[in-house]
């Protein structure tokens, strides 16, 4: 069966709108994805019929809401291959998930001067700053992998970077700027041999490719609902249960306790321990519906469609004069996120002219300033694709870039 992109598009109400008098060409899914009718409907139905607080009530509404919330946890666990739903912690976004690990694991491992945390130059700010702050708090040292000229993780310094002082390695699974998909098997294996723990920032991979925590080699992964057809306000931390069970709480308050006295508190087991306060209930349920939607299409098919679009886009962009691509130039080991420079035109201006034509791309540093610095530019223009992207939209991008060059000739 071929992937029926027209049928997929019909599920996304926003795709039929116009922008500045042109049909919307949404090429900013790495920033946030659009949401199908099916997800919005499940959330609406929940809010209109079953809204109650979770884990706190014996009443019918509360029980219905709790069941739906926990069912979503189960769906999301299965989606990433986790055998135990209690390994899924709901957060508000990827960023919170990474901060949770930085704080809680940092305490659990009693990080101290001499210890090392390893990241890479390819990270999103959300996988840089929490570790910088952890190192500030504990005196540990932050180290990082570089990036090669063709936008791959530079593993040449692997042996010196990962050593007996390494406690935590946190890497992006797919880069949100370069599109690079990192095969971290060798790094993870070496980290493990020194007893270090491995976290993967899967914010860009889980939405776009089949990800299975059983074969990934990671101890923790983070991802975020709004990039995978789900609502804003919901993110996910997956962690190995034995680890989560040993880690101290991070955010504290209602629902994460076992018992509380004024003098002393004990904590519930995971995942409750890490879900303080009223969680994003409708949002978790919406994310469950998003996972249903993706499963119905099949993540293999989604990925194949994006590979096709990416191949096409790489070819088309190569033909636009003055366009310089950052990151891998062939579809192998990369996803559908293309960042580029238009010679002599600032990305802000590129984005503005494209927007006037209804073509929505992201411009700026993409929350990855070190990547921009690595390639010697203050900002980039980025087009990113998803299951609803068509080759026509790539053509519209190319036409838009011609227009950009005309305005700034």
């Amino acid at each position, binding site marked *: 069966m071929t992937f029926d992109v027209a049928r997929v598009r019909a599920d996304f109400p926003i795709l039929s709108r116009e922008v500045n008098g042109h049909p919307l060409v949404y090429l900013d899914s790495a920033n946030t994805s659009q949401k199908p009718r099916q997800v919005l409907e499940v959330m609406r139905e929940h809010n209109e019929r079953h809204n109650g607080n979770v884990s*706190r*009530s014996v009443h019918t509404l509360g029980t219905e809401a709790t069941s739906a919330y926990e069912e979503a946890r189960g769906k999301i666990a299965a989606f990433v291959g986790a055998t135990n739903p209690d390994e899924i912690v709901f957060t508000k976004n990827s960023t919170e998930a990474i901060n949770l690990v930085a704080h809680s694991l940092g305490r659990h491992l009693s990080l101290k001067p001499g210890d090392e945390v390893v990241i890479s130059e390819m990270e999103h700010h959300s996988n840089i700053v929490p570790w910088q702050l952890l190192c500030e708090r504990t005196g540990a040292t932050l180290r990082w992998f570089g990036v090669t000229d063709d936008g791959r993780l530079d593993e040449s310094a692997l042996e010196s970077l990962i050593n007996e002082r390494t406690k935590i390695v946190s890497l992006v699974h797919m880069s949100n700027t370069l599109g690079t998909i990192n095969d971290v098997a060798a790094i993870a294996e070496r980290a493990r041999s020194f007893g270090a723990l491995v976290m993967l920032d899967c914010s860009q991979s889980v939405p776009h490719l089949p990800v299975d925590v059983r074969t990934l080699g990671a101890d923790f992964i983070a991802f975020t609902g709004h990039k995978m057809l789900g609502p804003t306000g919901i993110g996910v931390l997956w962690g190995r249960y034995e680890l989560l069970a040993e880690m101290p709480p991070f955010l504290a308050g209602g629902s994460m306790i076992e*018992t509380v006295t004024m003098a002393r508190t004990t904590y519930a087991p995971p995942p409750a321990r890490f879900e303080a306060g009223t969680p994003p209930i409708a949002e978790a349920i919406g994310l469950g519906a998003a996972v249903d939607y993706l499963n119905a299409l099949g993540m293999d098919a989604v990925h194949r469609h994006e590979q096709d679009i990416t191949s096409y886009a790489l070819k088309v962009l190569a033909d636009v004069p003055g366009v310089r691509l950052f990151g891998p130039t062939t579809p192998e080991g990369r996803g559908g996120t293309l960042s580029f420079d238009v010679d002599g035109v600032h990305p802000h201006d590129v984005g503005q002219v494209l927007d006037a034509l209804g073509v929505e791309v992201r411009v700026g540093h993409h929350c990855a300033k070190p990547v921009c610095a690595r390639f010697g530019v203050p900002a980039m223009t980025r087009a990113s694709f998803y299951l609803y992207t068509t080759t026509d939209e790539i053509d519209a991008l190319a036409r838009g870039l011609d227009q950009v060059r005309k305005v700034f000739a």
Partner: protein
Amino acid sequence: MMLDGLYQEIILDHYKHPHGRGLRDPFDGEAHHVNPTCGDEITVRVSADFSDISYDGLGCSISQASASVLHELLRGRDADEIAGIHEAFVTLMQGRGQVEPDEDVLGDAVAFAGVAKFPARVKCALLPWMAFKDAAARAGVDVGAAPEVKA
């Protein structure tokens, strides 16, 4: 959820007239369990030969009646029998109302069949049984695998 099947006469009887309640000496193992969502608490004590099982706690009709039934059903049995009954009860509670209870094995505990349809109350019914299992373990007797009970 309608009340049909939840507040069986047997359950209310055990609740109002609990059997064997109160902590007694001597004992070989003790465990204190808490249900964090509702605050129910129970302490269970066992002797290694199960000649006595004593308990005390605070809680709803379901958890209190369940402790009383447990006392009646398990006291004086041997470890194998207890493991069988324990497993049958846990299976019943986790069956979402789909499991047909065996009265020969479960005695008065069959009255809890209806509880299995109330997810929020399953934990109440299981609380004494989990505490009992821990207490037995501390007395050196294993009465079967721990089920996955969600807090």
